[in-house]
């Protein structure tokens, strides 16, 4: 028993050094060497400042931008999280109704337009950077109005939405989607 106790303590120390120090440091070194941009958060610079991460959704509520999904944490990442409202939640039912109403009014679309699900429901992380291409197209009129775009420019934005749409990864994995931050970043450069 005494022998086992001593072994247990020494063994825990060695495992801690091996898997708790050497392993994460070695992995950080290799990651920084092979994929430095990704290992550091896929940050995007604009005017010499960090404008955000390509992977982390951010809040847009101005009419000159495309809007992301509803977020339970209002896109404040500390900490990430969801609404955790259940399938029979009265609160969620009211939220969905209100989101539908606002989406129709703000985007100047008709009451009967089918609104993609992700615009009515909050994401799991609260930081979902994507929406579906359909959701982006439905917002086009609003953005065009917000930016006073002419017909030629609107066609350019339409083309942009098309270009920024990601199909399934490696032709196999995931759903068609568009990164809102990425789209808005490109939108700012349309003249």
């Amino acid at each position, binding site marked *: 028993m005494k*022998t*086992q106790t001593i*072994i*247990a303590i*020494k*063994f*825990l120390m*060695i*495992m801690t050094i091996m*898997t*708790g*120090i050497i*392993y*994460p440091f070695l*992995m*950080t070194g290799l*990651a*920084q060497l092979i994929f430095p941009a*990704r*290992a550091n*958060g*896929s*940050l995007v610079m604009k005017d010499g400042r*960090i404008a*955000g*991460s*390509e992977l*982390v959704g*951010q*809040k847009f509520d101005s009419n000159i931008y495309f809007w992301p999904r509803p977020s339970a944490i209002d896109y404040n990442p*500390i900490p*990430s*999280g*969801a*609404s*955790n*409202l*259940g*399938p*029979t*939640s009265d609160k*969620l039912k009211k939220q*969905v109704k209100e989101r539908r109403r606002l989406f129709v009014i703000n985007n100047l679309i008709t009451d009967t337009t089918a609104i993609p*699900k*992700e615009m*009515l*429901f909050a*994401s*799991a*992380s*609260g*930081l*979902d950077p994507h*929406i579906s291409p359909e959701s982006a197209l439905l917002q086009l009129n609003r953005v065009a109005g917000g930016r006073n775009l002419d017909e030629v420019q609107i066609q350019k934005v339409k083309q942009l939405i098309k270009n920024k749409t990601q199909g399934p*990864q490696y032709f*196999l994995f*995931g*759903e068609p*989607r568009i990164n809102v931050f990425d789209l808005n970043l490109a939108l*700012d450069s349309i003249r």
Partner: protein
Amino acid sequence: MNEAIQLIIFMLSLVALAPLLGRYMARVFMGENHLLKPVFGWLEKLVYRISGINSEEEMNWKTYTAGVLLFSLFGFILLFLLQILQAYLPLNGEKLPNVSWHLAFNTAMSFTTNTNWQSYSGENTLSYLVQMLGLTVQNFVSAATGIAVFLALIRGLTRKTTEFLGNFWVDITRSVIYVLMPLAVILTLALVGQGVVQTFSHYEKAVTLQGAEQVIPLGPAASQIAIKQLGTNGGGFFGANSAHPFENPTPFSNFLELLAIIIIPAGLVFTFGHYMKSGSQARAIFLTMIFLFAAGLAISLWSEYSHNNVLNVSGSMEGKETRLGVMNSVLWSVTTTATSSGSVNAMHDSLSPLSGLVNMVNMMLGEIIFGGVGSGLYGIIIFIFLTVFIAGLMVGRTPEYLGKKIEAYEIKMTIVAILAPSVVIKLFSAVACSVGPGLSSLSNSGPHGLSEILYAFSSAAGNNGSAFAGLNTNTVFYNLMMGSGMLIGRFGIIIPVLAIAGSMARKKIALVTSGTFRTDNWLFVSLLIIIILIVGGLTFFPPLALGPVVEHFLMNSGVTF
């Protein structure tokens, strides 16, 4: 269509890779020559030399159990101390305060029992130091402990007239150096390639396109996420776990992580086959698991895609990520509860009632549908004993498994192992439903509130770790109740299993005759499935009927809470 293809790719990869990994692991644990022995053999020897381990020396079941308990105890103490002292320790760039004693107790218990229940969010609670020196270490060794207990049990079943079950320290060392570590290194790099962060830099401040400030949390996440998946641990680096864009940034990272969750538990089934020198015995277990897995998945997919009359939607996106979609979220939820992983890529609290039910049933059955690394297999072997015993009663023969007689002592221990987690789930849930501190943490009311509590204790007892996260468990009441539940759910099974291993090792192996009850054919697989469902189903049917089942019917008639 695209969903179906992704599902098929996942199932095919599982069925193709599990036997290969299983064979490799058998070579590792039997001490034979294998691919990595020449590469890391020196490291294995170095670990033995420094810790004073004689790798040739084998242990009887009591010494083996003492090793498991002592090692877990010291791991618990170290992790507890790291948390309550983190403010004084280095690598705390965000100046996070010390963790409260009850949260530290819960988290330390959670990670040493391979549960990884999290009453906190990593990004605003734990320093980089605690994440790696505390949590990552336990992610490795608690998984390795599960494998070690499983190895002791199969040695007990396949050896004859001996006291010895192998050496606990050797089993852990080999699991870590030759299995978990190499796979974790590969997965870490693959994940960073997809966008998972791996850095020691402080959190960054961004100025968004609209001019607001956004703090972007960073950290050595990929190295921890790789082992969190491979070791069926499941504790996220960030609060949203594998729904967080930095933990699971792309559909491909999702596929890799999903496969990583299930591949070792599935592979170990075939490792068992190599020990028994019988592929057909292993295939019988694998078929049982695949059947139960597929049945749960089918129900869950059907339920999630069905129309929700309250929200007027089919395939709700509440608590799901766009890049992953409904199918990948459901597939993950079934995989993470069938194995004892507990990592999530969607919020289970917002799943449809019957999808939530499948998750709970997976955990209530004792985490045996692939289950945790090692723990899933010793769990299902417990159910095999029960099945053989009941079949023996029916035909009036002494029950045998792999030529070993199963007698009163083994059955007593089997019953303890099956009852221990069940008691936690039902009794602890009942207490939580009857006292103020249990009810005040709820975020949903009506039957879904009961489901939140029931889910929490199923998760604790099954050492799963996933949650109906609306329940706020960072309270003294829940941190202590859940912590105790995890303890009972872990060692209430491990100790009886090791006792069975010791008793089985002492027995002779009887020859197979025409009168032997076969445990590798369809008849046996069907019996095993029925026993698992009856024991699990009957035990938990009443609370499930009051929770998710009632909610399903009320949802169909449009009732809200």
